[in-house]
């Protein structure tokens, strides 16, 4: 477990240093994510492992533990928001409408474009089982 946690911290640390050092618009943890995937790809080439081995590894267990409780991690920030409700103030109803309308529009457009392009690409390149 500790080795898995160390791996996550180390990837994030390198990501944070790179993001700050080069003033990239990408957050450090996202760079850390990419580093982890690249590391797993390289590791699998050097010493092949299967999916079950990854799941049973320290990294696999820490990752599924964290991601299984991902929503919990937003609670402190969410509580912070309740302290700033006054800021919404007079624009509350307009902002509420904008958030609901925009989220609905974004979900519909994104899923629609994804499926439409997938269907088009599938016609060009058939045999995609998914």
């Amino acid at each position, binding site marked *: 477990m500790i080795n898995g946690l160390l791996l*996550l911290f180390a990837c*994030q640390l390198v990501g944070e240093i790179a993001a700050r050092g080069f003033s990239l*618009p990408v*957050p450090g*943890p*996202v760079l*850390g*994510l990419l*580093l982890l*995937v690249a590391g*797993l*790809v390289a590791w699998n080439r050097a010493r092949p492992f299967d*999916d079950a081995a*990854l799941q049973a590894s320290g990294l*696999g267990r820490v*990752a*599924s533990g*964290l*991601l*299984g*409780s*991902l*929503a*919990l*991690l*937003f*609670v*402190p*920030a*969410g*509580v*912070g*928001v*309740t*302290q*700033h*409700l006054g*800021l*919404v103030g007079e*624009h509350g109803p*307009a*902002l509420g*409408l*904008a*958030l609901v*309308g*925009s*989220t*609905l529009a*974004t*979900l519909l*457009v*994104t*899923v629609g*474009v*994804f*499926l439409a392009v*997938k269907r088009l690409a599938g016609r060009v390149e058939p045999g*995609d089982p*998914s």
Partner: protein
Amino acid sequence: MTASTLWVYLAATPLLWLTVTLAAWLVADGLAKASGRHALVNPVLIAVVLVALLLHATGTDYPTYFEGAQFVHFLLGPATVALGVPLYRNLAQVRRNLLPMAAALAVGSVVAVVSAVGIAAALGVPRAVLVSLAPKSVTAGIAMGVSEALGGVPSLTAALVIATGIIGAVMVTPLMNALRIRDYAARGFAVGLASHGIGTARAFTVDPVAGTFAGIAMGLNAVVTAVIVPLMASLV
């Protein structure tokens, strides 16, 4: 030790509010489980309301609460890195969907900004608030930076980001089911793009493939939004 000196001790240690955060989460998550993970019973919202009520009742300020809650908050970074594991495990499926993802990202990221700003502007919301609203679909750290650089109010942006996350997490399952969309890659990608980490958390409770694609969309849209919002602001 009297009750008041006990309170002085408890109030000074991060242990109390860390424990409260985890306990509130277990209650909220228990309610969500009991509802069969119904979309409307959002555990983040319930836990936040429980903690906020308790803070209010005990007259505790947010910095004191955060002394304890920071240990949970801190894990957001490592959890983001941990998204690399499901991403790696589903790499083949991700590769097959590169084209749909690129197209959905290009269109979705613009719609997320323009629709929110458009609706609010039509309702007479002033520019400083519009700037705070524009990056609401991306993870709070990035959104606050974008908003601040353009003269917005970062803490208002944080509030709008969290609200967007909860709205998307509540909306996505009933919406996609009503539309009979069973492609979990597409469903996940949409909710991660529209509602960042809170949408991604919801996607993981529905389907691991949906969670993976939500995580990818969240990361990609954070980058795209950080680039396009300042660009759009300079045009308007």
